[in-house]
């Protein structure tokens, strides 16, 4: 509860800066609109105005600056506009009894969430299996680790279309599988790194102790390394699920998809409706926040039950 006040303060500052930024960002569009409505604007005509800085325009036409806060198609929508758009595409849809409408964000969020969860599951599995291999086999450590690192240097935006093309070549219908693969591609790395660290967390004396019991490799894995890695695993999972969501959205962006938050962002861009982009963006942020919070709760409960509450 103590963290609420600082978080709200930061939020208030962000919203404040955002509101301030709306004026210069939208002043040109606002002046065009005012001029069309017959008002006097200095200088006249949108073409000459291009050579004048937004600050000059705001000073000379201060009476029209307010218009920038209520535009139909703003360059930068106000937080309130984004909020309205979000409500229109979610809550209002539910109120109208059409929550799954393809015009609403609930449907698109669900599409994105599905791929994210599949990608997360796949990525986590790969990450854990990879980490076990790396910790137990020197060969795996030497061969896998460099490739895991190199894999993260390749821009996912470049890789995503290729994965879609290749998966359709091998006869995989739809975008679900390739999107999950792209998502897993981003998600496995933090899990792998965290898990390697976690499995190596027990110190030498703890490993020596098991040696004095003549414990088998499997016994020391199950009783020492695995439980010791749990706190590290959860930290990685939280990073991993956010990465999985980003991966899914990236997978939806350059591929001509029509469903999913990524597709909404792309379509908003193509049709010049920044409001749609912003609301999809916020839906993605809310989704990521909810997923990370859920994992955080599971982490707290698990660690508490394990006696390792922090």
């Amino acid at each position: 509860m103590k963290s609420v006040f600082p978080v709200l303060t930061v939020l208030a500052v962000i919203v404040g800066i955002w509101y301030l930024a709306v004026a210069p960002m939208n002043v040109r569009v606002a002046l065009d609109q005012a001029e069309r409505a017959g008002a006097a604007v200095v200088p006249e005509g949108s073409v000459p105005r291009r050579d004048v800085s937004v600050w000059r325009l705001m000073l000379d036409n201060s009476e029209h600056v307010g218009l920038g806060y209520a535009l139909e198609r703003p360059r930068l929508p106000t937080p309130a506009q984004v909020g309205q758009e979000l409500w229109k595409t979610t809550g209002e849809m539910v109120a109208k009894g059409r929550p799954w409408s393809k015009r609403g964000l609930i449907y698109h969020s669900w599409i994105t969430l599905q791929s994210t969860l599949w990608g997360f599951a796949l990525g986590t599995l790969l990450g854990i299996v990879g980490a076990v291999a790396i910790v137990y086999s020197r060969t795996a450590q030497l061969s896998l680790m460099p490739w895991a690192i190199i894999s993260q240097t390749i821009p996912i935006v470049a890789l995503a279309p290729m994965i879609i093309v290749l998966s359709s070549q091998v006869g995989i219908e739809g975008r679900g599988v390739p999107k999950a693969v792209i998502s897993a591609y981003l998600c496995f790395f933090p899990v792998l790194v965290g898990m390697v660290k976690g499995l190596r967390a027990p110190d030498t004396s703890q490993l020596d102790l098991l040696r004095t019991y003549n414990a088998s490799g499997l016994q020391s894995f199950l009783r020492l390394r695995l439980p010791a890695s749990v706190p590290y695993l959860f930290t990685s999972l939280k990073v991993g699920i956010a990465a999985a969501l980003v991966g899914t959205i990236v997978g939806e962006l350059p591929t001509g998809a029509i469903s999913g938050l990524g597709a909404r962002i792309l379509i908003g861009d193509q049709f010049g409706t920044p409001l749609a982009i912003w609301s999809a963006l916020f839906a993605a942020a809310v989704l990521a926040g909810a997923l990370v919070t859920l994992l955080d709760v599971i982490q707290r409960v698990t660690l508490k039950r394990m006696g390792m509450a922090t």
Partner: protein
Amino acid sequence: MTTQNVVQAKSLDLTFQTNDGPVHALKGVSLDIAKGDFVSFIGPSGCGKTTFLRCMADLEQPTGGAITVNGTTPEEARKSRAYGYVFQAAGLYPWRTIGRNISLPLEIMGYSKAEQADRVARTLELVELSGFEKKFPWQLSGGMQQRASIARALAFDADILLMDEPFGALDEIVRDHLNEQLLQLWARTEKTIAFVTHSIPEAVYLSTKIVVMSPRPGRITDVIESTLPRERPLDIRESPEFLQIAHRVRDGLRAGHAYD
């Protein structure tokens, strides 16, 4: 091979190869430990006292000489679970209760559930921790944690107890108390104990045999058979006999340092 010698080491060498050249952790170490002995190893850092303990436990392999534990190689002794080892850090698993920490070796060795519960209760009583079975390690003080770790080493009834500075990180008052308890425990269980320490009073108070070691190369400079009675109240440490032995240990330590 006589049965009363639990540990026999003959001119044991152990050389570590490091980037700065070879390090002679042990050189020509010969020692016999009889059944029921309480042997302390004392000396400055790098004298090989811990290394020697680890050789008995098959955690290090000597590079020369011979060592037997219970008449067999250290490896066989380890595999037949002939000893319990107590490290300087209690090293309890934070995700296990005290009771489940103590049953860890029992689980690994395949004891039945009933047997585990029975032995956990018995060893907890032995270290005076009854009633703490359900507590997690962080709920216990450092001294209690170390007692739990001793209980863990006792749980499977090994005849030998190897202790590597088990009380090194504890304050003096707690240490005194644990030393007293350890002596009582040793008297009750009749185990053979090898105990590494930095403290002269601790070594003299506890031991039937004090092994003084010195570094570069790690070697034994003196072996002192204690003349103190087995029954030792804490105030025995003010007796002239005690001070005499402590004096001899100090001389031995000083002699080992004479060359540098």
